[in-house]
């Protein structure tokens, strides 16, 4: 760089020297008035040479400037190139992170929470969920002397509930019962049994098809989950409702649940009974159906959104005639074994010679209303059943009826719903959380057709009518833990004859029973 600078200076000196010649020797020029034309030519040549040299100098200067500029720009371009590389690398990293996040989204998901344990494929087409229900109850009867040994602590329900979805549209549920869950539970078998086992194809919310063992669509109280009932036990009205059965059902929710329908064909079970054998070899079937409307569910009238009314019903033809060699699953105590109090004691039983025979239909208008902390649920049931006395061959259609109305108020202000209560402040005394408290009450009545006596039932032992009222307090510690305490009194008309076993012993006095429950559900 220094060499070039020296050259430049030398060039300039030469140019200046040559350019100054005419001025340095003016006299010589003047004296040369007689100069020859050769001298003029020489001067002209020198001028041209000077011009050429000047051009050379300019070119060299331009070159020099360009070189200087290039030298100055070189690092800048390198910086720019490096800057672009850095930016590209940063962007690539950013894209890689996005891609990693996308891949993470495609991974199976595991969810643990108040709603159970759930495993799901990334696209939610495959889901497996584990729920559970454990209920530890106590029953304390005031007239303990009539029926010995009915007080106690029991595991009312103990159910792991496996449910899920395969191939997006196929749902399933499998619920075994390890508790003492059978109605009439004081003496019921405690062997594990299958409560729910079904597959449901969901074409759309409005069109679904279910097959297996599950609750038939008839009674409102019975269809409410065991976890969310106001009381430990369902009311007298459910004594006339068919319990879990095997069958096929078409069902759906239209318009977001404004209208719900279900209709199916089932093996058929007696009032208040459920299928315990997972088989039913019998020629006749029962048709069950239910239509439930929540007309204001999607309206903006909040006070009416949780008003639901509906009707459920069934129709079947129970017969004692069975294919030879197959187990007799209808008739006798299997389908008309009796009715139970809140304390799960039998207060009515058909005579052993009474068989189901002929048409059996049920009709159950029903409804509920929930608004804020208030909840109300009611149901009326008629069960009309053909019966026959196998000894006298006498037949009759017996029309039994029952109804119940129950209500609750959440004292701590949370919303009451058909799906339970979620405490606003879960139980955590160290931080001032005490859960939610709900007071509940119920009245229920069951009337047995007077024509049942004496040909099909014995009025000395069985009550023809039972009325029950109940009051209780439910404490929801959190979404999963609940503690109940309630009292039920059932009074009877008829029955009360001598005897130490149900139903006579049960109907000798009104039944007063105090319940408690500790429940875990998730």
């Amino acid at each position, binding site marked *: 760089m220094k060499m070039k600078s020296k050259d430049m200076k030398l060039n300039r000196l030469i140019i200046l020297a040559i350019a100054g010649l005419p001025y340095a020797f003016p006299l010589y020029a003047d004296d040369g008035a007689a100069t020859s034309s050769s001298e003029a030519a020489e001067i002209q040549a020198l001028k041209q040479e000077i011009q050429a040299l000047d051009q050379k100098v300019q070119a060299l200067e331009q070159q020099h400037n360009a070189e200087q500029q290039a030298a100055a720009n070189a690092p800048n371009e390198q910086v720019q190139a490096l800057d672009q590389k850095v930016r590209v690398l940063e962007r690539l990293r950013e*894209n890689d992170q996005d891609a990693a996040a996308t891949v993470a989204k495609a991974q199976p998901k595991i969810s643990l929470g108040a709603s159970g344990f759930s495993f799901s494929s990334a696209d939610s087409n495959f889901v497996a969920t584990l729920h559970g229900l454990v209920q530890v109850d106590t029953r304390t009867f005031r007239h303990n002397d009539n029926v010995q040994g009915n007080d106690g602590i029991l595991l009312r329900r103990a159910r792991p509930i496996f449910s899920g979805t395969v191939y997006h549209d196929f749902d399933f549920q499998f619920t075994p019962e390890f508790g003492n869950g059978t109605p009439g539970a004081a003496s019921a078998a405690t062997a594990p049994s299958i409560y729910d086992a079904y597959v449901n194809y969901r074409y*759309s919310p409005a069109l679904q098809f279910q097959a297996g063992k599950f609750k038939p669509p008839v009674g409102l109280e019975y269809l409410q989950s065991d976890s969310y009932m106001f009381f430990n036990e369902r009311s007298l009205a459910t004594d006339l409702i068919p319990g879990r059965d095997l069958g096929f059902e078409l069902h759906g929710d239209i318009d977001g649940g404004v209208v719900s329908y279900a209709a199916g064909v089932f093996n058929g079970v007696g009032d208040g009974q459920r299928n315990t054998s997972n088989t039913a070899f019998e020629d006749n079937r029962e048709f069950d159906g239910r239509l439930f409307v929540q007309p204001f569910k999607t*309206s903006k009238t909040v006070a009416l959104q949780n008003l639901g009314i509906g009707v459920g019903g069934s129709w079947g033809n129970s017969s004692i005639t069975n294919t030879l060699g197959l187990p007799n699953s209808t008739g006798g105590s299997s389908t008309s074994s009796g009715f139970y109090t809140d304390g799960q004691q039998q207060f009515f039983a058909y005579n052993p010679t009474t068989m189901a025979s002929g048409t059996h239909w049920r009709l159950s208008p029903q409804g509920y209303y929930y608004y804020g902390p208030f909840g109300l649920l009611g149901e009326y049931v008629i069960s009309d059943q053909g019966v026959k006395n196998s000894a006298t061959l006498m037949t009759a259609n017996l029309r039994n009826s029952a109804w119940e109305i129950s209500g609750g108020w959440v004292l701590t202000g949370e919303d009451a719903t058909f799906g339970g209560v979620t405490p606003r402040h879960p139980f955590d005394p160290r931080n001032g959380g005490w859960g939610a408290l709900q007071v509940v009450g119920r009245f229920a009545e069951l009337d047995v057709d007077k024509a049942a006596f004496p040909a099909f039932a014995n009025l000395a032992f069985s009550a023809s009518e039972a009325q029950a009222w109940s009051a209780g307090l439910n404490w929801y510690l959190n979404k999963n833990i609940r503690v109940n305490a309630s009292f039920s009194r059932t009074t009877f008309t008829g029955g009360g004859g001598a005897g130490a076993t149900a139903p006579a012993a049960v109907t000798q006095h009104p039944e007063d029973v105090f319940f408690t429950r500790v429940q875990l559900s998730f």
Partner: protein
Amino acid sequence: MKTFLKILLASTLAISASAKEIKLLNVSYDPTRELYQDYNAAFAKYWKTKTGDDVVVNQSHGGSGKQAQSVINGLEADVVTLALAYDIDAISQQAKLLPADWQKRLPNNSTPYTSTIVFLVRKGNPKNIKDWDDVVKPGVSVVVPNPKTSGGARWAYLAAYAYALETYGHDDAKAKDFITKLYKNVPILDSGARGSTITFAQRGIGDVLLAWENEAHLALKEFGADNFEIVTPPLSILAEPPVAVVDKNAKRHGTTEVAAAYLYYLYSDEGQEIAAKNFYRPRNEAIAAKYAANFTQLKLVTVDQEFGGWAKAQQIHFADGGVFDRIFQPQN
């Protein structure tokens, strides 16, 4: 009592019949967010007036190919509004969610608006990029998304390829050489058009973005006309983004009627105006004329003309082992 019951029943039916809320899911490609935000509001208003029902349209956006795959994998789209017909064909063929002839169900092959590929350059156009020849010059850094995942990228690739075919007398070898040079200038491939816009405009990478026309205008609006300018090449491709109801999903959701109306309304004057305002070229000639100033005239070639249709173009250029796989070498 009877009168009371009648009134109760009538009011029950009236209230339950009113205020119905319907939800739709529109699975779309990357740069249509703003278009459908505007359009969804207009359609909801129209549908409310017509039926009294509320419609809430949820949007899902991403690279068109990725979006199609998501629907195939179970994303419950009621409608798809994707970048190119091939992606909806894939949904039809692989998931059978709509019939093979879905494109015949709406006018203009179910493409209510069109677009093309232009250049977005930095202000002053320092690399003097005016035509496709300029983007393949050494030292020019080109930003464009990945044609494997982005519909816009496939349109851009085919636009460049079509230029080369037109320029070199349909000499395919020379066209391949041209496209190879182009992708040598690409430092990064984003998965979708919006990602590439961010790369170019926000992250300051590259000299030119090969962009949807509407996306280029949006970039000017979002990132400042004093930072960028649009260069429309003399020749580009007629991009036809199609729309379709995903029949089986819509049927399952009970939304078939409203989904069909949602797409048909795109052809209405209001729908076309909204498209034009968002720099999509409307099909309606009167509205196209009204917004002519928004759209530079250029020669537009079609996929059918130059490449024999989307199925063939996909197979030759973008399928695994196709031309793109052979010519593109990642720089990093």
